[in-house]
């Protein structure tokens, strides 16, 4: 029975065009768009040079920022900036003549002025944002728990030091790769549309097919298990295809830990499928509402994992860190990041266990909800 249902579930799902588009084609299309949008950025990265920047100090209230800028503006080859401390008039003239990429005005507040959009300008912007976030975090800790400041500084310093441990044989540390991590995470979550469709077709109160299947002499658990497996198989193949497309065709550098990435995508897909089964199994909600819930959940989780703005995860980490620990999309992104940055698997394994545990909870809850075979109304 399991394999009979599995066979036809696979056939039926693969042939459902609407579902195929969202789960299979959409991530490919979005990946291509990302690639086209960041194309120049990738090319620029290859000939990356120090960014000339002007600094105008209006007072000494933020001298720390100037000091940090100086530390990133050394003679070393891998330093980030060439910094010129000057007055406003000269800085603006330099910006106009393209002698500098941007101007930092350092006073009560620190502001950045740039002439156009581009990779270098984005780097300046991200640099400033990270400084401000770190500063806010430390200030907050000082106000709440002054004794914890040193520990916090250590943690924040460690975050920075991670860059020093990058193994060049692994993935690129280009910030744009994060978008592709988030894309794969979104694609994993999109598995919920596959399983939602299949679950609805199992419920007598939502579809005539559910009624017909409800009167057949088959155990619901067996049917759900085979539907789950078919969705997982399809989604995992989609993820593999997406990974091949991104790495082989678009040449995105994800590093060389392929088996671990496959494992990660398998766990991610399993979560997506479990999410769809769970939403599909919620009683007394129409199929339209369930689709709406699935779409919203996928988009919100993907957004929070950095699909539209790569700094989102960092922002959440500073404001509501528990959400990053529970957001499956963020866990997938973080796992990719961990695979490419760390030598050890500690962080990767923690994320995998969390993801597996959440998948298990969704599965148990779904079985609990769908085990009832009788309905109050059809």
């Amino acid at each position, binding site marked *: 029975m399991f394999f*009979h249902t599995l066979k*036809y579930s696979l056939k039926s799902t693969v042939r459902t065009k609407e579902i195929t588009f969202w789960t299979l084609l959409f991530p490919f299309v979005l990946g291509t768009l990302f690639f086209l949008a960041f194309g120049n950025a990738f090319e620029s990265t290859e000939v990356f040079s120090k960014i000339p920047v002007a600094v105008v100090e209006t007072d000494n209230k933020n001298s720390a920022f100037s000091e940090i800028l100086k530390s990133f503006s050394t003679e070393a080859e891998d330093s980030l900036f060439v910094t010129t401390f000057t007055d406003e008039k000269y800085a603006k003239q330099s910006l106009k003549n393209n002698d500098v990429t941007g101007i930092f005005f350092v006073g009560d507040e620190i502001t950045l002025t740039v002439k156009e959009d581009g990779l270098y300008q984005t780097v300046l912007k991200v640099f400033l944002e990270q400084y401000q976030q770190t500063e806010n975090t430390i200030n907050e800790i000082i106000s709440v728990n002054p004794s914890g400041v040193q520990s916090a500084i250590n943690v924040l310093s460690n975050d920075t030091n991670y860059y020093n441990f990058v193994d060049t044989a692994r993935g690129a540390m280009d910030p744009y790769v994060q978008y592709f991590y988030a894309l794969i995470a979104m694609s994993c979550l999109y598995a919920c549309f596959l399983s939602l469709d299949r679950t609805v077709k199992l419920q007598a109160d939502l579809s*005539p097919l559910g009624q*017909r299947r409800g*009167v057949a*002499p088959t155990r619901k658990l067996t049917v759900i298990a085979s539907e789950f497996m078919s969705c997982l198989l399809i989604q995992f193949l989609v993820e593999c295809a997406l990974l091949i497309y991104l790495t082989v065709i678009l040449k995105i550098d994800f590093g060389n830990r392929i088996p671990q990435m496959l494992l990660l995508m398998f766990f991610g897909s399993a979560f997506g499928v479990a999410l769809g089964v769970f939403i599909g199994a919620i009683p007394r909600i129409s199929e339209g509402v369930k689709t709406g819930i699935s779409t919203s959940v996928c988009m919100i989780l993907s957004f929070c994992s950095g699909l539209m703005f790569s700094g989102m995860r960092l922002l959440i980490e500073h404001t509501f860190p528990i959400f990053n620990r529970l957001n499956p999309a963020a866990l997938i992104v973080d796992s990719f990041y961990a695979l490419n940055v760390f030598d050890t698997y500690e962080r990767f394994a923690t994320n995998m266990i969390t993801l597996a545990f959440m998948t298990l909870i969704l599965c148990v809850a779904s079985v609990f909800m769908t085990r009832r075979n009788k*309905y109050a109304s059809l």
Partner: protein
Amino acid sequence: MAAIVEIENLVKRYKELVALDHFNLEINEGEIFGLLGPNGSGKTTTINCLLSLLTYDKGTIRVFGKQMKPDSYALKHDIGVVMQNVAVFDELTVWENIDFFCGLYIKDKKERKKLVNEAIEFVGLEEFSKMNPKKLSGGLLRRLNIACGIAHKPKLIIMDEPTVAVDPQSRNKILEGIQQLNRDGATVIYTSHYMEEVEQICTRIAIMDRGKNLAIGTKEELKQMIKNSENISIEIPTLDDTHIERIKELNHVYSAVYQNNQLKIGCSGGKHNLMHVLNYLQENNISFGRVYSELPTLNDVFLEITGKELRD
């Protein structure tokens, strides 16, 4: 004959609405049993309760002598269901759909293949076996729906309005098919609000309305339950009220209504009622045109029992 389905005192409420009101029913082996009633009378609710899809507030349901529960897999194995709405996978072909549903009952692949081919032949879909349901006409789709429900050769077949929105040709094919299934040994429960169909194929009929079983019996028994035994209709250009009253006084005539140049007379019992009426018209020099005489239909039965037409 052994009772295959026994429903006792079944009550089903949807909040304030009582869908089944102490409903009782017994269906015997080998019957084509018709559940006749207007839309909303409780036919589909009865079927869904019988199949353990719906919860109910009170009563007992026994199928093949055993209590029917959601996990009564052995009982379900011998039941075939043709739902009111077409329930097939749009993405699978005709053959695959039948094979899938048959496979929920029959594990052996060889046997299943044979049964699927027989079902396709039975509903006349040989030419369409590789087509997707979306490409089938409404009638062919209904036939596929039936094939999916009966391919595993069940002992009890439940058909819930299988001919809704079907063309006359397909309808005849479906009705002939149901009679064939019955001849092959299946007991059939057939719900419909088309009285002609029920009258044509059912060996016993229950008339239900507002969740109650109003009358049960063969079509002849049902017709004997009402006083109407003959409907006479005569075209008359003009007719005085005096004559209408006199016609009402004729033997066995219990009603006479003159409307739109048509005189409609209801008779209860007696013989040669038409001759008596025509004699009266001739004796009184009343000219008349076409004359019809019909035996009562199930609609007359329903009308008399419930006071309303079957198809509102």
